[in-house]
Structure formats: C-alpha cells, structure tokens
C-alpha cells in the first residue's frame, strides 16, 4: 500500500515532501478576524502575540549568542547549529528579529522591508531543500526556514489586526512536519496551532449561537478562501458517496477471518505453510470494530472530518495525478476542505449535478497518500488504535535480508485518503504492513516475493532509486485502464511488450476488495497494487 520511503522515491515526490510544510494556515486568521473580530481579539490574540514575541526574542538571543561564539572562535564545529547556514544569514535573521521587536507600526516601510527580508531568508533556505537528498539535508537549513517562518507569522499577526492589512493579508504558519530546531520547531508550531484551534472552536460556537452564518449560495469557491458557503454543503452531507465507477473482479481471493490474538498471529507468522515464502496475506474482518473512527467519530462523515481541520482550512499535501509513476504526476498543497469538495467527493460540491459522477475524465485525481496526517491532526489520531498485532515479532524478509530495516519503536502510521480511481502502482515495502480500510472500498492485488524477478523492477531514475516499484501497470495489463497515449512503440517493442504481458499473466497472485472495517495483512516484500474503488480512507501500520 505504501509508496517507497522518501529518500527512495521519485524526485518530485521527494521535493514536495521537503517543501510541504504540512501545516499551513493560509487565511485562517484573517478569516477569523473578519468574522469574529471582537471575540477573537479578547480571547486569543494577546496570548498568541505574546507567544510570538517570546519566540522572536529567543531567536534573536540564540542568533546573537552563536555570532558571539563564532567571533571568539572563528573555526568551530558548526554542523549542529544554525551557524551551518553561515554567519551572514544568522546575522540577517537576528537583525530581522530585532527590527520586529522594535517595530512601532506594522504598516510602515520598515515593516515592508522586514517582510521582504524574511521572504529572502525563506527563499534562500527553501532553495537548499532541493540541493540535498532529504536524508542529507542539514538540519540547520530547516531550522532557518522555521525560525524565519515564525518571525513572518509574528509580523503577519501584527498586521492582521491592522485595518490596512486585515482584508488582504493571509497568514501562514509553516513547517510542522519539517520544522526543526530544539527550542521551537515542531513544538512551537503545535502550541500556536492549539491556540488557533481554541479560537476556531469558540468562534464556531459563537457563530452557531448567533446564527450568523450567511445564506447558502450555490457558488463554488475554487480558491477555497471563503469556505463558508460550500462548507454548509459539506456539513449537510451525511456520508461520502459510495459510488464505484469501476469494480475489478476478484480472481484469487485472500482468505478472510475474524481477528486473531497476538499469540495466534505470532504463530501464524512463525509457521508458514511454505517456509521459503514466509507468512502469507490475510484479511481480518473485525479487527477495528472498536475504533472511534468507525463508531463515535465517523470518518465517513465529511462534517466530522471538517470539524477536526478548522472547518477544512488545514492545508495538506496531495498527489495530483492517477499514480506516482505517471507523467504529469505532482504534488501540491490544498486545504482539506478543497480536497474533499473538489477532488474526493464531487457530490459534496454545491454545483454538483448527477452527471458529474460519470464524467470524471477531465478531472484530475488528487490523493492524500503516505501522509503523516495523523501526526498533523491529533484529533484523528485519537480515533484509531494501533492494533495489538503490530506488537509481534514478524520474520525478516523471506528472500533478501538487505531489505530488512532497523527495528522501529512504534509502528509507522500513514493515512491514505482519495477519490475513486487512485492507484498505488505495483511495489513492495521493507516492512510488514496492516492496511486498515476505514471508509470505502479498495482493490488490492499481491504477488509474492518469490516472483520478484518477474516484477520488472524499475532501476535508478533521475538519480532516485525506484527499485521497489514495478514498471508493470496492472490496470493496463488487465485492460481496466488505457495505456499512456504518448507511447510510440516499434513493432519489435510491441512484440516484446506482448511477451511480457503474457508472461506476467501467468505469475500467480492473490487479490481482494477491502470493505470498510477490513484489515489486510501484507507481509514484508510482497508486491502490491492498490486501487481505490470509491471514496476511500485507509490507515496503514508498518512494523517489523
């Protein structure tokens, strides 16, 4: 189910992961201020401003300490501190923190210059994200980016209450996932978000009490800046559409059974029928019956998901395009509300008409894939429970011990949320995986690691290792999808393609359609192809 770990994957994917500070709060504050100014000011503004002031002061202090230390000893080991960015940038950052502290009015030329310099620092550090593989990116570039973002947030906060700016400025608080720095970093951003969330909940309550919501207008806001009108539609919708444009046949069904105890599962994994192959895939039909996501906090209700994302204002990185190996595939940041409204379930959209369901062809597919959404949204994280089965000791990779990873302390969680038609191409992962289907249906096909040679693994592409991904497109080979249009094959190539196709048809596999509440066990090294059939929300747990 999971695409490769970031440093193995396609460059565009990797780059967006670097740059996707998965927490951007565009326009949230401005929106709050416009609609609920009095309340907002009293409740949270001062608190948040003080929080920013403290951080800005701390940034300046740290920078000055570092610069003084560098002056005393010009050639220290700098790799661990912000000085790795060079004294010049540390000095510039310190100066901006100082300007911010003494800023008399947020609407002066000095403030404009401050904003420009912060943008300069952001773009300088941002450009470094592309210079390195993520694993090699020195942490100080992320810290510089984070600290400059905090200063910018502080300045925007000052401006947000200033009449001249409140109607045009948007606020962004960037970098929780990649935020770095011991003193602030992710923790700081998290706390700032908590304060914002308090403001959001209180203003929502106030809005409800006063019944001041504007009349519903059937207008799709494609920028998602003013979500009020379309959010009403989202709130009104009871559940996601169950519509499945296409349902592949299941030919070699994976065995289904009720949940096992940890002991039985350990035994199942330790005593496989084929000892060279190791444990085989299995579906548990009732492993997650007690999850709040399936009961009290229903993830299949758009209204509930919105309530955990500031009414859909939180930004998330999504994959645009059918599959990460397609041409034109990319990632971008959109609000959770836009994701649901424009991509996941068009029936939620105010201008939706019934025909839209069948004419998906012109629409790009967006997929929130392999995203640590659950780290970003603690409310959703609390709706799921790590299955006890992840606290077992599964066997190593059956055929290639080089694939085994260092033991993880906690299972790695990823969220997968997309419309019908999303595809994760045939690939394998270096972990055992429990894939839990929370909302909607997915088709999964698995090939055993013993058939790795027939999977036609890709090699290194554009300097990025793609060896865990097959060059075969199951959907095209089965005739479910059209092959890419732009491929001009010579007769020789066509013949060899045809040979491959026939050879591949003979490779044994197992498959299934996961329904809501199902959990698929994918043993380490098994090649898997995953296809969303309806609106689908899954969570995967990697462990070893």
């Amino acid at each position, binding site marked *: 189910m999971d695409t490769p770990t970031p440093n193995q994957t396609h*460059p*565009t994917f990797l*780059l967006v992961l670097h740059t996707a500070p998965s927490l951007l709060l565009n326009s949230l504050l401005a929106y709050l201020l416009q609609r609920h100014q009095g309340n907002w000011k009293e409740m949270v503004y001062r608190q948040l401003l003080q929080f920013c002031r403290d951080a800005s002061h701390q940034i300046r202090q740290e920078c000055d300490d570092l610069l003084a230390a560098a002056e005393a000893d*010009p*050639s220290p080991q*700098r790799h661990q501190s912000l000085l790795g960015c*060079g*004294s*010049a*940038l540390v*000095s*510039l950052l310190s*100066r901006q923190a100082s*300007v911010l502290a003494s800023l008399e009015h947020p609407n002066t030329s*000095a403030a404009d*210059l*401050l904003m*420009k*310099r912060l*943008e*300069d620092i952001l*773009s*300088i550090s941002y*450009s*470094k994200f*592309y*210079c*390195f*593989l993520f694993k090699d990116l020195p942490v100080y570039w992320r810290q510089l980016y984070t600290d400059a973002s905090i200063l910018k947030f502080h300045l925007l906060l000052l401006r947000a209450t200033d009449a001249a700016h409140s109607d045009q400025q948007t606020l962004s608080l960037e970098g929780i996932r990649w935020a770095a720095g011991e003193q602030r970093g992710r923790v700081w951003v998290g706390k700032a978000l908590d304060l914002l969330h308090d403001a959001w909940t209180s203003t929502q309550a106030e809005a409800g009490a006063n019944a001041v919501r504007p009349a519903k207008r059937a207008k799709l806001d494609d920028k998602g800046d003013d979500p009020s009108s379309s959010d009403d539609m989202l709130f009104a919708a009871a559940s996601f559409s169950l519509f499945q444009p296409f349902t592949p046949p299941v030919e070699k069904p994976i065995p289904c059974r009720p949940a096992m105890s940890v002991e039985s599962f350990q035994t199942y994994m330790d005593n496989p029928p084929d000892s060279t192959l190791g444990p085989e895939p299995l579906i548990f039909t009732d492993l997650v019956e007690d999850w709040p996501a399936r009961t009290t906090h229903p993830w299949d209700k758009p209204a509930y998901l919105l309530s955990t994302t500031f009414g859909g204002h939180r930004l998330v990185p999504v994959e645009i395009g059918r599959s990460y190996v397609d041409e034109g595939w*990319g990632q971008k940041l959109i609000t959770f509300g836009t994701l649901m409204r424009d991509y996941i379930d068009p029936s939620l959209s105010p201008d939706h008409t019934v025909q839209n369901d069948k004419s998906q062809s012109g629409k790009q597919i967006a997929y929130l894939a392999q995203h640590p959404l659950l780290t970003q949204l603690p409310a959703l994280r609390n709706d799921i429970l790590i299955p006890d089965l992840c606290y077992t000791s599964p066997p190593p990779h059956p055929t290639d011990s080089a694939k085994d990873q260092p033991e993880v302390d906690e299972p790695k969680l990823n969220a997968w949320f997309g419309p019908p038609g999303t595809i994760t191409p045939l690939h394998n992962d270096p972990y055992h995986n429990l894939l839990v289907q929370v909302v909607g249906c997915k088709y999964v096909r698995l090939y055993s690691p013993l058939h790795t040679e027939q999977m036609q693994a890709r090699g290194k592409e*554009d*300097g*990025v290792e793609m060896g865990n991904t097959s060059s075969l497109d199951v959907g095209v080979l089965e005739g479910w999808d059209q092959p890419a249009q732009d491929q001009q094959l010579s007769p020789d190539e066509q013949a060899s393609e045809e040979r491959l196709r026939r050879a591949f048809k003979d490779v044994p596999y197992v498959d299934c359609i996961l329904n809501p509440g199902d959990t698929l066990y994918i043993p380490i090294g098994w090649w898997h192809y995953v296809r969303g059939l309806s609106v689908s929300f899954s969570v995967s747990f990697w462990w070893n």
Partner: protein
Amino acid sequence: MELYASGNNAWNQLVFGGVESASNEPTDFASFQLVLRDPVIERPHASLACTCVNTSNGIQTAGFPEDWMQSQSLKDRVLQSLAAIAGNGTIAVYDGQAVRQYQSVSHFQHGTAQRVFTSMRNVSQIVAYETGFAALSTTGQVWTWGDERYEACLCRDVSDVSLAEEPGTVAELEGLPTGKVKKLAAAGYLLMALTEGNDLYAWGGRPGLPGFLDDISASPSPVVIEDHDVADCAIGQSHAVVLTMSGEVYTAGANGNGQLGITTETDSPWSRVPFSPGSDATILSVACGPRNSFMIVQKPSRHT
C-alpha cells in the same frame, strides 16, 4: 573605471568604503548605481552577503565577510575563477594539476579533498551551480559534474561508465558554428557558454522549477536577444545578465531584490536596462551575485 550595481543589499554588499550608520536596515538597489570608482576594477565576485573586487588597491570587499573568505588562497582562486562553491556547499578548486573537490569550507581548510579529478587539463575557468560544477579549458573543452538528480544541468548522457559525479565532457559544445567556448556562467540550475564568435548558449533546469528563459533543456540552445551578438554574460540564483556587442545590457528573470535593474515586479523576459554609461564610456563586462548584478564601466582617460 567604475563599478555599478543593482539588487540585493541586505548585508550592505553594494556599499564599498564603510557604512556610516548601522542603525537602519540597508535597502536593495532598484536600479544600477555607482558603487566603486578606481583606476583598476576587475570582475567582481559576489556571493550571497559579500562582494569582492580586485582594484589598484588590492582586493576590496563590501558586505558581510563570509566563512569561505577566511581562507586567502580560496578567495584568490575564486576571484581568478579557478574555484567555485556550489549551492550545496561543495567546493571545486583547480591547482594547475587537478581539480579537487571539497565537501565544505572546513574540509578545504583541512586539505581533505572528497575527490580529486586529474582528467581536466589547462582549466581556465570553474563555475558552480546549485548542485554541481562546469569547467572550461583553454582549448574550449567543457566538462560538467554534479548531483545526478538534475541531469539537465550536466548537458550529457549519464550512465554507469559516465557518472554524474565525475567530470564528463560536453560533446554538444564542441564544433559550434562560431568557434570554441571562451566563457562559462552558472548559478541556480542554469548554465551558459559563450563562444569566440559571440554566440551564447544556455542549458539546465530543474523539474518543478519554472525557468525564466525560454527553451531551456538538457541540451544547449542559443540565447536569442533580438539580433545581438553577446560580449559577456553572468547568471544569478534566478536571473541572468547579458552585455551585447553593441554595448547594451539586458537582464531577465526574478526581480525580487531589484537585480534586473529595471522596474518590474514579476519575472521578466529579456529587457534592456535603461542605463547609459555616459558619453565616450563603455560597459566592459557584467557580473552577478545570487541576487544582484554588476557592470564594469570604462571611462575615457582624463586629460589634464
């Protein structure tokens, strides 16, 4: 001679001869302004926060002294275009025998080279972009090497026998219609080569990064600015400057810091800079820092 500059001045790197008051944050130059006058002005080297220029009084610097300048030998080599520092911090230095590559300034200072390339001879210039380098020999041969993820910047096929990280010759820059390559320029993800016949070629690009010049790919394409022959060129992080044989300066790209020397807020295609060096004066050459631009102007010698 006179040095004019436009663009980023966040560290006062366009202010030679000391700053009077440090209380105000320095602003950028939105157009080309005179920054230095001296009987001798060589081509400046501008890094992010600092400008170095060789004059009749030796090397003059403006701005914030950067870490790499602590080493006099590195500074000398950089000013001679025989050393360059890539955006990822890697340094390449030619010592007359070989090109040595260092991971960082401190590695250079400790003399611990990461790689030594002996294949490149008679190197006359080394330039760096974000993740790699290009070198030029006195015979016009061009080599490139660097991060294999950005193959377009290398301008050659990468394979198991021709690795990205090791210098490989750029065959496409040989046998050009107007003679051999006499100068290279590079920064960001863009590289340029200028021929003896004053044709300019550009290549490079990074997936996902909109280029500011048309037709930039993994293969050199001619840079066409009306019908001008090109006398000199320079590249910044996301802008470029060209001096035509007719003595006019054109700039293109991002103008966030005023580096184009023209009034535009958005990215600009090639535009002529409305700058006149004065009667009888000529613009000799151009240079770029990451976010600023320079031109050297020759004034007619004064008769007393």
